[in-house]
């Protein structure tokens, strides 16, 4: 691979409250190439390759006797103009690390306390053809302790789904991608665990 790729300049197309639109001006083997992207951050030539986490997604589950239940949320998503099922998720606040953010989102969105938490995947890009948004994902055993504390525009209901029914549930509902995939990951990981293969 002998391609000479250089980011020459970063042009701000427009800034919005949650997201910004940029054009990256590249030179690829001495030929110009312009690329549009969106970012949650303020981008410049220097921070375009910086490691960062914009947001976290948490897969919360509760243990009740021999059963495991997944805590899904049903939320009105404005970009979709509809209610969809999903997992608690949210952006990091200034000065917060990913783990703190995850615990806060679990408390706010489903009124739960984290008992045990482990990364489901290491940080990764949500859609690297379109955006540099990078997220961390977690599996979290929780206990439901209190009330949600929602922002004015958030419309969130809670739905518990038994782990046994999870595959069918995610295959037949409209959801966010991480919600579907983390469900399947968790399901097969637990199954493997049961068989004593992990």
């Amino acid at each position, binding site marked *: *691979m002998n*391609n000479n*790729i250089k*980011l020459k300049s970063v042009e701000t*197309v*427009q800034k*919005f*409250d949650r*997201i910004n*639109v940029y054009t990256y001006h*590249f030179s*690829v083997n001495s030929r110009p*190439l312009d690329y*549009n992207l*969106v970012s949650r951050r303020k981008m410049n030539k220097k921070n*375009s*390759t910086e*490691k960062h986490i914009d*947001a976290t997604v948490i897969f919360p589950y509760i243990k009740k006797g021999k059963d495991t239940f997944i805590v899904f949320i049903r939320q*009105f*998503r*404005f*970009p*979709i*103009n509809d*209610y969809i099922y*999903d997992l608690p*998720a949210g952006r990091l606040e200034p000065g917060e690390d990913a783990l703190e953010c995850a615990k806060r989102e679990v408390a706010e969105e489903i009124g739960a306390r984290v008992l045990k938490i482990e990364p489901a*995947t*290491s*940080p*990764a*890009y*949500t*859609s*690297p*053809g*379109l*955006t*540099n*948004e990078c997220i961390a*994902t977690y599996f979290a055993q929780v206990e439901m302790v209190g009330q949600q504390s929602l922002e004015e*525009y958030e*419309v969130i209901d809670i739905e518990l789904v038994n782990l046994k029914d999870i595959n069918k549930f995610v*295959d*037949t509902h*409209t*959801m*966010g*991608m*991480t*919600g*579907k*995939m983390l469900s*399947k990951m968790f399901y*097969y*990981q637990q*199954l*493997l665990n049961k068989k004593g*293969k992990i």
Partner: protein
Amino acid sequence: MQKPILKSVEKVTDTQYTNMYLYNYEYNKKLMPYYVTSRRKMTKQNANKPVADAVIVLPYFVKNKKTYVVFIKEFRYAVNSYIYDLPAGLIDKGETASEAAARELVEEIGATCKSLIPCTTLSYVSPGCFNEGTVTFFAEVELDKPQQLEDGEIIDLHILPLEEVIDFVDNNIMGVQGKMMTKIFYYKQKCK
């Protein structure tokens, strides 16, 4: 709880592939503007219609009873770096998701698709900001032809035995779907 009502949709940027739209909602009798990023031309009428914009495919093959997964290493302009990932692409006009998956396998890794099974049904990649919908597949492939890359596409293959894929996705920067699909594939194979 009242459902927010979409009153109007305005296009606010004019770039070739991805644009910002302003969705004007009314919620609890108050106006609530919300910016939405989309690959499609959005209107008030199509705003709640689920559409698959893209496909992601995990290609694998079996050789001497061992299973191998085919990753790609690609320069991603939006993150100004080479990253590992799985083959993926936009669904062309008139194409089904399965057809797009088979085409991407030919173009990006030079493979013939022998069988295709769904990993997840249509889902939203990042529904707080985007309306992008994606369908994902596991594909058994045969690497039997040259890649057909577009101008500006820079893609190398990285083939790993199944035993190594978990460490690989944990230790490398990738797209999140690629990481999750790889883990689902691994656990599913091991459960057999």
